[in-house]
């Protein structure tokens, strides 16, 4: 399997990151909640502890609609290269879903919101999933 080459995009990545941060700040201002995608997605299913289901559905719908909006606004979409067969995707998806909810957060909840709040739990979680992900890529690509 040949790994897809990608281009270093510091300015676009910084700008896109700033938009992600702006969304996290707006969600806090509007709903008073942390913008953690894993927590929002997990609470799409029962049991429902609060009356916030419609808002969570709307947030996830916004995520899914985003590439369509980019396509309509700019006339093109950036690359999306998914490697790995169906078995790998299913195993990886299950691990990502289980691990993010078991660890109370993913890249957004711990990596963005938690670090910005200087939360020690989020710092430990972020360093742990970065190291685990880097080790996994090393094993897959270089062993």
């Amino acid at each position, binding site marked *: 399997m040949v*790994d897809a080459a990608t281009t*270093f995009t510091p300015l*676009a*990545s*910084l*700008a*896109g*990151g700033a938009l992600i*941060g*702006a*969304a996290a*700040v*707006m*969600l806090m201002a*509007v*709903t*008073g909640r*942390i913008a953690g*995608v894993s*927590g*929002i*997605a*997990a609470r799409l299913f029962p049991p429902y*502890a609060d009356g916030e289901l419609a*808002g969570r559905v*709307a*947030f*996830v719908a*916004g995520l*899914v*609609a*985003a590439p369509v909006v*980019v396509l309509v606004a700019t006339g093109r979409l*950036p690359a999306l*290269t*998914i*490697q*790995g067969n169906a078995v*790998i*995707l299913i195993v*990886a*998806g*299950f691990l990502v879903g*289980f*691990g993010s909810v*078991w660890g*109370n*957060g*993913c890249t*957004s909840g711990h990596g*963005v*919101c938690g670090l910005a709040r200087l939360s020690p739990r989020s710092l*430990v*979680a972020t360093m*742990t*999933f970065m190291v*685990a992900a880097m080790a*996994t890529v*090393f094993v*897959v690509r270089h062993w």
Partner: protein
Amino acid sequence: MAVVLQFAIGLVFGVGLVISGMSDPAKVLNFLDLAAIGSRSWDPSLAFVMAGAVAVTFIGFAVVLKRPRPLFAETFHLPTRRELDFRIVSGPVIFGVGWGLAGFCPGPAFTALGFGSRAAVLFVAAMLAGMLLARWLANRRWLSAIATPTDQFET
């Protein structure tokens, strides 16, 4: 109104993922590939995504949390726990392995659905199944000796 705003906020979040390149698993994996540092295949873009997102959130939270309350809620729901436990390490280990295998974390997995990717449908279905199992296990009394129940304010 709050629901419309949350759709718009999800949209901004997703457009950020697409513009930053984080919606592309290949870009994520090329960042995580530390052995490629120094070669042309290493892509440091993800560090810039994180830097931009954390900087804006750090400043923005400081401003917003000075307000008495959110626009559409009684109070701010902020996690208060600080202690490290079994789940805060074991969860990220499991998550990180999955992230390194496919290059998708939960946000980009949802935006990939909007790209029309059929592979993303498989990934998201398995991800939701994993989330449901973790949420169920987290609330089992017989596991509470090793795993503290979920803090409803954490993500």
